Every structure is written in C-alpha cells, then in structure tokens.
C-alpha cells in the first residue's frame, strides 16, 4: 500500500526539555526523518568566563535539574585536576554515594514515570496509580531512596549545596546513613517486584549497530573519572575528550551532534553496560540475565532494561559504600588549596552517559575558558539515524502511521534524553 503522511511531534512529551520528531513518508517510502532539538540555549560556556572556580559548580549544576550532581562533580573534577587539588578519600566516597543517589532517582523517574506509560498505553503514570498501584509505589519508593541518598550526601535532592572544590563541606550524619541503609533493605524487595513487572513488557525488536562510549577504569563500574573507551576498541585518556566527541552543528537543531569512529555513537546505561559488564555487582548481573541482556547489545530500546539493571547495581553498591562510611570517622572531608593556573577535563558518568566539563583557570583561580559536552548531545546523532532506520523498518513491516509514530516516540524516550541539559 502506497501511503503519504507526515509525523510532526512538536515538543515531545515525557522527556526533559524541548525536542521535535519530524518524519515524512511519500509513496510508502521514507522521505525524511529528523530529531530536531528546539530548546533555547543558555550559554553556560560563556557564563563561566571570569567566575571564581569555587562558584563554578554552583552555576553548572543548573545546566540540569535531573543530573545536577553530575554537572557539579564534572566541574569540580575538572577544576581540581586543573588546580592540582586532591580530595580526601572520605570525600571521594561520599561523592560516589551522591552520584548513586542521583542515578537511582533519575533512572526511577524515567523507567516508571516517563517510559512505563508507553508500554501500558496511558498518557502518563497517573492512571497507573489505579491499574498498577504496586508498580507506581515501587517507582516512587526507589526515586525517594535516590533522593534521600542525594539529600544525605549533598544537602538537597536537586542542586547540591555541599559538593565543593577540595571535597565536601559537610559529611552526612551516621544516624542518617544508618537510616538509609535500613531503607535500602526495606525497598530492595520492591525493586525485585518492579523487575518482574518490567519482564512482562514487550521490548520492540530493532537493532542498528553503533559505537558505545563510556568511562572505564578496569576496577569498578564507572561513575567518576577514568579512561574513555568505545565498543569499537578506542581507548583514550580523560583529557582527550575532544577526540571522543568531534562536536558539529546541524541546521535543524540547537543541540550539537557528535561522533567517534562511525557516523554516530551512543552513551548511557546501555553503553556503560556494554563496556563494563564484568564490573557490575553480581545482583545486577543476575537481573541482566533474567532479561537476556548481554554485551554488546545494539537494541536502543534495551537502554530501559540496562537502566533497571543499573538500579540493582546502585542499590547493592550503595549498601557497601554506606558500610564503609559507617566505619569512617568522617572527619577528613576537605583538602585546603590555593588557586592556580591550569587546565583539565573532568569526566563523570551522569545517569544518561559520559559527561565532560573542561575548565581552564588563571593564577587567581578565575575560569578563563569552559567547555561542556553533555551525554544527550552525544546521543543526538544516534537518535537521529535510529529514527531513520526504525521508520524504514516499520514501513517495510507495513506498520500504520499511528504505529510508526508511537514507536518513534518510544525510541527517543528510550534514550531518556535530557534536552535542556544538552543545549545548555
């Protein structure tokens, strides 16, 4: 059947920020498919110029309301490396726990409230409160657990107050840590229940081979710092981030595109999983096995499953980190430092993938140059080419306009794009 139609989704709902999907089909053939980000830029890379280094993480955390801890820590890491500051070990562990809290909160928000309605066929998670109360409840309780970890370690769920150059300004109280440890024990069964629910969902069958990028240090599942690797065998030092991104602009998007060895590449939970499978907590590996998820997986819809697998890792690892902190006197939390001139990259694994901040300082500790490359930016080209391939595959399978539209929306959501973050 020869059909003509246009899909024009303006400001795609249930994602962070403003992006459009534009598909045009003529005579039953795909004529065009675009991922067009229309978000307004804020120019953070200009705003950091002239700002005191110690203030920078408080500015850059505002790049994103979902992954503010990652942005704060990417700036802190770049500035600490630039000014040769070594944070104490205790601060390093507290920061890692903060990252775990953020990623858990972000994955729970995405899985249960942004992605799940697609699979259930509802416009939002609100109707699920009636039809699947235990699933929504599990989502809320895991999101809250993530937020509680962030609040205990950084003072607030969004936009951390106590992550500072040199370490952390305040340590979490042991009493709070013990309470959260109990919370984890209480809520683990909810994660298992939710996993059963996600197992009943049908993940669309679609594969487009791509290059997955993430951090890697060979010792632990990556969150803060490390080498930059891809599933095509590239391995580079953290400071060589430009070779991993090759940013370029396209006329239909205010967010840039990037690539490494191919026309596009992907970052995020699935990329971390594909590059670091061996370093996952055994409980997370067991969850992956239950879904038949193995590295290297090239189905972008499986990013949802990879996020769920990571939730298992985060919860199990957080328990172990809390035990270490409970054995620590939590006194040595901040290194003194003097401002100095320097330049370095800070790379962290934000919930949606590897995030780079590059900062250059002068001898008074003011920033003279900044550059931020966001995970979603590194997924734009992959989303764009995936849309093309998915629309073509769906048309070849004789899918209707409505079906193509729904699949395309679900595809973009699977990347969990953080669009205002990607424009910054």
């Amino acid at each position: 059947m020869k059909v003509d139609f246009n899909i024009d989704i303006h400001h795609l709902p249930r994602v962070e920020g403003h992006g459009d999907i534009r598909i045009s089909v003529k005579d039953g053939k795909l004529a065009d498919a675009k991922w067009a980000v229309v978000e307004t830029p804020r120019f953070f890379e200009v705003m950091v110029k002239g700002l005191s280094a110690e203030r920078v993480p408080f500015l850059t955390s505002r790049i994103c309301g979902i992954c503010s801890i990652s942005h704060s820590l990417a700036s802190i890491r770049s500035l600490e490396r630039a000014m040769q500051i070594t944070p104490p070990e205790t601060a390093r562990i507290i920061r890692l726990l903060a990252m775990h809290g953020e990623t858990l909160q972000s994955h729970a928000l995405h899985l249960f409230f942004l992605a799940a309605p697609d699979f259930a066929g509802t416009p939002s998670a609100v109707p699920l409160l009636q039809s699947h109360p235990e699933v929504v409840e599990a989502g809320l309780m895991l999101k809250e657990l993530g937020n509680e970890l962030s609040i205990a370690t950084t003072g607030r769920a969004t936009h951390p107050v106590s992550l500072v150059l040199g370490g952390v300004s305040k340590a979490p109280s042991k009493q709070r840590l013990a309470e959260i440890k109990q919370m984890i024990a209480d809520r683990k069964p909810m994660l298992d229940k939710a996993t059963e629910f996600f197992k009943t969902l049908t993940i669309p069958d679609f594969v487009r081979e791509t290059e997955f990028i993430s951090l890697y240090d060979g010792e632990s599942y990556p969150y803060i710092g490390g080498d930059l690797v891809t599933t095509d065998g590239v391995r580079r030092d953290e400071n060589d981030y430009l070779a991993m991104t090759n940013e370029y602009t396209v006329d239909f998007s205010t967010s840039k595109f990037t690539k490494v060895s191919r026309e596009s590449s992907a970052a995020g939970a699935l990329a971390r999983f594909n590059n670091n499978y061996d370093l996952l907590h055994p409980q997370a590996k067991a969850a992956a096995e239950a879904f038949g998820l193995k590295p290297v997986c090239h189905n972008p819809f499986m990013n949802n499953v990879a996020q769920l697998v990571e939730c298992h890792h985060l919860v199990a690892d957080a328990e172990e980190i809390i035990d270490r902190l409970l054995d620590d006197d939590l006194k040595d939390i901040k290194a003194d430092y003097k401002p100095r001139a320097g330049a370095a990259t800070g790379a962290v694994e934000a919930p949606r993938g590897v995030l780079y901040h590059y900062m250059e300082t002068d001898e008074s500790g003011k920033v003279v140059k900044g550059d931020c490359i966001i995970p979603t930016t590194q997924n734009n080209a992959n989303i764009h080419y995936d849309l093309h391939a998915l629309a073509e595959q769906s048309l070849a399978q004789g899918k209707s306009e409505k079906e193509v539209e729904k699949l395309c929306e679900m595809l973009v959501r699977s990347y969990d794009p953080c669009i205002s973050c990607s424009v910054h």
Partner: protein
Amino acid sequence: MNHLGFDIEKLKIGSFDFTCCEGCQLQLANKESTLPEFLALLDIRNFREISSERLDDYDIALVEGSITRQDEVERLKAIRAQAKVLVAYGTCACFGGMNAQKNKFPKEECIRTVYGDKQIDTMQESHKISDFVTVDYSIPGCPVNKEEVERIVVSIATRSPIALPKYPVCVECKQRLNTCLFDLGEVCLGPISRAGCDAVCPSGKTVCLGCRGPADGINYDSFVQLVKDKELSTDEMNEKLAFYNGFTEYLNHEG
C-alpha cells in the same frame, strides 16, 4: 474533595517550562511519600514533562524558566490569556535566574563562542516573566522548596491568603543552630535574602547566594558595611549578588 475540613474543587493546573533546567518542575514529583495526596488536590491538564495529554482548560499555570527567545513571549502570552492565576515558579521565572549571568556578555560573543558561525535566535538578556505578562504569585527558589509549593497550592485551592516569609535567611539559619559562615571568613547573603528555604545552603556549610531574592525591608548599605568591616572581599560579594539576578536594583543603584 476535602482538605483540612474545607470542601474544595480539584485545581485545574498546567505546568509550563521556558528557558531553564526544569529542576523546579521536577520538585513537583519529589517528596514521594506524600505525592499521591498532593496529586489528589490537582487535576493536571497540561504538564508536558510527565504526560502526553495536553489540554488547554487549566485555571492555574505554573510557569518555570526565564524568557530568552521571541517565540517564548508568544507562548507565555497565550498561557496568560488562558490562566486565571499565573504563578512565576522558581528563580528563573521570578528574576531571570542564573541564566542572566550571560547578560553581561554581548549576545554575538555568546553565539560565536558556543556555535561558531551557526545562526542562533536568542535575546541579549535572560528575562523574568513579569517583563512580559502580569504575574499573580511568585514562588522563588533555585529550585523551589516543595513544602512551600504545597502550602501555596493548598492556599490557592482554599482561597486563603498567600505570603512568603518577609524575614531573611539568617532567621532560619539561627533556628538551625548553624555556625555563621561570616565567622569562618565567608561572605554569605543570608542577612539580605528572603527566607523560606530553611536555610538549606548554610546548613550544608556553603554560603547563601540569594536565590530567593531580597527579603522585605532589608538594609543593603549596612550589609555592604558589614562585609567591609570584616575586611572581606567586595568583589566576591558582588559576584554573589549577581548570581541569581535577584539584587539588580541594589547593584545598579550602587554602580
């Protein structure tokens, strides 16, 4: 619907985002343990970030973000035309927010630095929404404090008077028995910033940067004098005052 003995109708609400990080909207989904009760007060008609249902019959509009492009002005005016009550939601909407730190750079420089030769449509300044529409209520904060949001939403629903704390952050900070950061040699904007955040920053041992704007009836000159008396840096003070764009009237007045 019954709340605290009041019979109230569910509020038909819409939540809209402009130039920002969307962190304030996200707070609506926080405080998870009381979320179902909070949602029971609301009839969400339009909230793109969490729902694909987009209806245009809302009465209350929460508007998040600053305005930095002309198409946002048109969208904002359409929301104003529909809403009976329009709330400036968060520091970006109330003051222009940290986005306004770009205002001091020519926009051509901003575009060239980030995008090279690509054409980008952007205003010279990051604007607060009251530059374009009438605002009925303001809830400042970067991000907003969910407890305050809940309180104000309930007040709107029960038609009770709405007021933000008039006093400065120092009052809340002292209630929490924190060591004053001035005594540790830091410039903190707590003495002149509006309370309502439970002094969350100084309680985490970092300074208040004034995200909630000036408190009522502040004595700006004596604050500047305090910084000078303590021999602390006024450059640092000015960097902090400019951080969220909440103190422009004082900074301009001085300059």
